[in-house]
C-alpha cells in the first residue's frame, strides 16, 4: 500500500491511478486559479469604478468644458453611463419605453413628455407621469433628480439651461461582475436578429460564394445570426475559422471606441490589401473588404447605395483586410523570437559559466548580469538603441515596410534581460549541484567531466529553468511596455498604460483578465512540463 502510494513499482494500475490523481489535482489547481481570477477582476473593478474619482475622465474632454449649466450635468451622467459607472435614464427615455410597451399611446406621450421649467409649471398629465417615473425608479433604488431651467432673466433660456429630469443608479459590484462574466463568451444563434426575417436558419455550402461559387470550399452560413459566416476556410493560418463563439473581454470606450478589447488586440493593422472579390450581389470588384467577417446591421442595406449595389441582405458590416499583423501578432513575433534567442544564448552561456567557475568567461558573464540587474532597464534599452543606430540598424518600427531588419533591435533589447536572468539562475543551480554527493560519486566512478555535466548536473539543474518556459512563451503575447514604446512597435504592451491614461475602464478590466488567465495557465503548464522532464516530481501523492 505504501509502495503504491509512492508509485515506485511502476505497475500499470499504479500509473493509471497516478494519472487520474494528477489530472484531478491539476483540475483543482485550475479551478482555484479561475476563482482567484474572478477575485482579481472584482478588485480591479472596485479600484477603477469606486476608488477613482470619476470626474477625472473629463479632464481632457473639450466637449465637457464647452458646456454649461444643466446640460453639463446631464453630459456628465451620459458619459458615466457610457464608461460603465452607472445606469442613467431620462424621463423622455422612460416615456418612450412606455409607448413601446404599449401602456400609453403616441399622443399621450407627446403631450406628457414636455415637462415644465419648474415643478409648478407642470400640467396635470405631466405631473401624473413624473410621479409615476419617480415612484418607479425610486422603488428600484435609483436616485431621481430634477433640475429647473436656468434662465437669463425673463423667459430666455441660458445656454445649456434646459430643464432636466432623470434617474441614475450606480451599478453594484455583484451585478457588474455577473454581467461581465456571463457576457464573456457569446454563442451566435439564429435568433440573434430581432427584426422579422423570412428564412431563419443555418445553411451549409460546399462552394463558398465569396470565391465566386466555383472553388471547393465548405462553409456554414447563418441567416438570423449576428455573423453571416459561422465556419469557413481561407488561405490564412489556421485556414479554418469560426465566428460561432466570440470572446468579449470588455468594450473599449476611448482607446478604440466601441470595439472589444480582444478584437482590438487581435485585429490586423496597417494599410489595406486589395484583392478581387465577388460581392453577394454578383458585383466583382477590387476591394479590401473581408466578406467572411460580414455582420448584421439592421436596415443598412437600404440605407446606402454602396451597400445596395453590393449586398443582398443586411449583413453589410465587414472588416477590411490589412497588410500588417495584429497588436498581439507584433508583440508575439518579437516576444517569441526574443524568448528563443534568450534560451539559445542564456542556457549554453550559463552552463559554460558554471563549468569555468571563477575563470574569465564567468567573470565577464557576472559583469553582464550585474549590469542588467543594476542599470535601470530604460537606460540600457536606450543605450542599446543608440548603439544599434550607430551600427546602421533601423531604430523605429514601420508597419508598411517589408524589411525584417527592423525586428532586430526590439528582439535583442527584449532578450537582453532574460538572457541575464537565465544565465544567473542556471549558473546558480549548476554550481549548487556540483557539490552534491552524486556528482562526487560519479567523478570517483571515473566519468569524464563532460559526461558529468551533460548527463547528470544539467539534467537536474535545468528543471527549474524548464518551469519558466510556458510562462515566457505565453507572456510573449502581452508585449513589453518600454521596448515597444522606445522602438514604436504597434504591439499590445502599451494597451494597459494607454487605457489607464484614457480612463478606459472596459479595456483595463479586459486586459487584467487576459493577464491573470495567462498567469494561471502558464503556472499550471509549467508544473506539467516540469513533471514531464523530471519523473520524480509528482503532483499525485497525498502528503505534499
Amino acid at each position, binding site marked *: 500500500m505504501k509502495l503504491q502510494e509512492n508509485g515506485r513499482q511502476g505497475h500499470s494500475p499504479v500509473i493509471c491511478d497516478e494519472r487520474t490523481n494528477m489530472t484531478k489535482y491539476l483540475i483543482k489547481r485550475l479551478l482555484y486559479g479561475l476563482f*482567484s481570477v474572478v477575485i482579481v477582476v472584482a478588485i480591479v473593478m472596485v479600484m*477603477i469604478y469606486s*476608488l477613482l474619482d470619476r470626474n477625472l475622465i473629463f479632464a481632457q474632454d473639450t466637449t465637457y468644458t464647452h458646456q454649461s449649466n444643466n446640460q453639463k450635468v446631464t453630459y456628465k451622467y451620459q458619459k458615466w453611463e457610457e464608461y460603465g459607472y452607472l445606469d442613467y435614464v431620462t424621463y423622455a427615455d422612460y416615456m418612450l419605453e412606455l409607448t413601446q410597451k404599449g401602456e400609453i399611446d403616441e399622443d399621450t406621450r407627446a403631450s406628457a413628455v414636455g415637462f415644465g421649467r419648474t415643478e409648478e409649471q407642470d400640467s396635470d398629465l405631466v405631473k401624473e407621469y413624473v410621479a409615476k417615473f419617480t415612484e418607479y425608479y425610486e422603488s428600484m433604488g435609483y436616485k431621481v433628480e430634477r433640475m429647473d431651467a436656468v434662465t437669463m432673466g425673463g423667459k430666455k433660456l441660458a445656454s445649456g439651461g434646459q430643464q432636466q429630469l432623470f434617474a441614475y443608479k450606480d451599478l453594484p459590484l455583484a451585478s457588474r461582475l455577473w454581467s461581465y462574466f456571463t457576457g464573456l463568451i457569446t454563442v451566435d444563434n439564429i435568433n440573434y436578429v430581432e427584426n422579422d426575417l423570412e428564412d431563419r436558419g443555418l445553411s451549409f455550402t460546399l462552394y463558398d460564394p465569396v470565391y465566386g461559387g466555383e472553388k471547393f470550399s465548405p462553409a456554414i452560413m447563418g441567416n438570423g445570426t449576428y455573423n453571416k459566416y459561422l465556419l469557413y476556410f481561407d488561405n490564412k493560418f489556421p485556414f479554418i475559422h469560426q465566428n460561432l463563439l466570440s470572446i468579449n473581454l470588455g468594450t473599449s470606450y476611448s482607446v478604440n471606441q466601441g470595439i472589444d478589447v480582444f478584437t482590438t488586440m487581435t485585429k490586423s493593422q496597417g494599410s489595406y490589401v486589395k484583392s478581387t472579390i465577388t460581392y453577394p450581389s454578383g458585383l466583382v470588384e477590387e476591394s479590401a473588404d473581408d466578406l467572411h467577417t460580414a455582420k448584421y446591421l439592421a436596415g443598412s442595406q437600404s440605407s446606402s447605395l454602396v451597400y445596395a449595389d453590393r449586398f443582398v441582405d443586411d449583413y453589410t458590416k465587414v472588416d477590411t483586410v490589412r497588410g500588417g499583423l495584429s497588436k498581439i501578432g507584433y508583440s508575439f513575433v518579437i516576444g517569441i523570437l526574443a524568448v528563443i534567442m534568450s534560451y539559445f544564448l542564456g542556457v549554453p552561456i550559463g552552463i559554460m559559466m558554471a563549468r569555468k567557475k571563477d575563470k574569465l568567461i564567468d567573470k565577464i558573464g557576472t559583469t553582464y548580469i550585474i549590469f542588467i540587474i543594476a542599470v*535601470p*532597464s530604460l*537606460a540600457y534599452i*536606450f543605450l542599446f538603441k*543608440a548603439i544599434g543606430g550607430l551600427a546602421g540598424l533601423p531604430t523605429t518600427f514601420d508597419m508598411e515596410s517589408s524589411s525584417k531588419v527592423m525586428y532586430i533591435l526590439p528582439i535583442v533589447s527584449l532578450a537582453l534581460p532574460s538572457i541575464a536572468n537565465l544565465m544567473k539562475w542556471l549558473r546558480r543551480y549548476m554550481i549548487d549541484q556540483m557539490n552534491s554527493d552524486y556528482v562526487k560519486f560519479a567523478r570517483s566512478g571515473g566519468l569524464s567531466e563532460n559526461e558529468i555535466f551533460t548527463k547528470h548536473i544539467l539534467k537536474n539543474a535545468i528543471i527549474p529553468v524548464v518551469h519558466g518556459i510556458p510562462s515566457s512563451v505565453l507572456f510573449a503575447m502581452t508585449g513589453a*511596455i518600454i521596448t515597444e514604446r522606445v522602438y514604436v512597435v504597434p504591439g499590445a504592451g502599451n494597451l*494597459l498604460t494607454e487605457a489607464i491614461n484614457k480612463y478606459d475602464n472596459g479595456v483595463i478590466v479586459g486586459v487584467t483578465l487576459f493577464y491573470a488567465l495567462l498567469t494561471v495557465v502558464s503556472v499550471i503548464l509549467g508544473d506539467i512540463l516540469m513533471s514531464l522532464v523530471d519523473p520524480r516530481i509528482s503532483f499525485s501523492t497525498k502528503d505534499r
Partner: protein
Amino acid sequence: MNYDFKQFNMSEEELFTLVDHSSLESEKITAPRYSYWQSVFRVFFRKKSNIIILSILAVLIAFAYIYPLFVDYDKFGNLLNADAKHLSPLKAMNKLGYNIHWILGSGAAGQSTFDAIWFGSRISISLALACAAINMTVGVVIGSIWGFSKKVDAVMMNVYNVLANIPYVLLISVIIMIFTPSFATMVFALTITGWLSIAYFIRTQVIIIRDREYNLASKCLGTSTIKIAIKNILPFMTSVIVTLLATEIPSYISYEVFLAYIGMGLSEMSLGRMIFEAESAMVTPGWGFEFWSPVVVSSIITIVLYVVGQNLGDASDPRTHM
C-alpha cells in the same frame, strides 16, 4: 622518558605541584571569541575593491544629500535667458561661468544639469531606501510567519494568488490618481503590495530551513518556536536577506525611472522624471548631455548599491568566515 631534573638543582617537590581537576576550567573554550558582525566586516574589508566601491558610494551619498544643502537650485531661474537652454558643457561654461554647476551643460529650461541630477538623486535614493525599508521589514516578518505556520500558509497562498495577479502598473497608477503624485504616495504605492514577493521568497526559504534536522533536534529539546525562529533560523537567513536587499534597492530606483517614463511618476524632479523629460533631447545632436547624464548617474548609483549589497551578502554568509 628519563629527564634529568638534576640540572635545575631542585627537588621534584619544588619543581612540580599537583593540580586538582577543575570542572569549571574544563568548560572554557580557549579559541578567540567569535563575533558575527565583526567577522562580516572583516571578510567584507578583506576585499580591497570593496573599499573603493564603498568610497564611491560615500561620494554619491554626499553629493545627493549634502551638496543640495549648500546650493541654491531653481529650475526656472534661467527660464527667460534664451541663450542658456540646451547647452553642451563647454558652451555652458563659456556663457555662464566656469564653475561646478555647468560641467554637465544645461537643460531645457536653462537649468544646470549637474544640480538637477543631485536634487533628483536625493529623491530617488530616498524613495528606494524608504520602500526597501518598509517592504523588507513587512516582507521578512510576514514571510517568516507564513513559512512557519501551515494554517497561515493556506490562507496566504490564496491571498498571494490574487494580489500577485493585479497588474502592478494599474495598482500604482490608481493610487497615484486617487492621491497626488507626491513622495509619500509613491512610497505607499510601491509598498502596498511590494512586500508580497519578498514575503513569498522568505516563506520558501523558511520552509527549506524549518524542517532541517538541527531544528527538529532543537524542537525535541523543548526550545520554544520563537527562540528557534530567532536563534536558529534568522542567522541562517541573514545572508539571504542582505542579498535580497542588494537587489531590492536598485530595483526601486529602476522602477521609479520606468514609471516616470510611462508618465506615472513623481511630481518632484526625480532622476526618472529627468530622463523622461529629456527623452527628446537624446536624438537631438548636441543635446545628448542632458539625457545621458541622469541615465549614467542613475546607473552608477544602482550598480554601486547593488555591488555593495551583493558583497555584503557574501560576507554575511558564515561559511565565508573561515
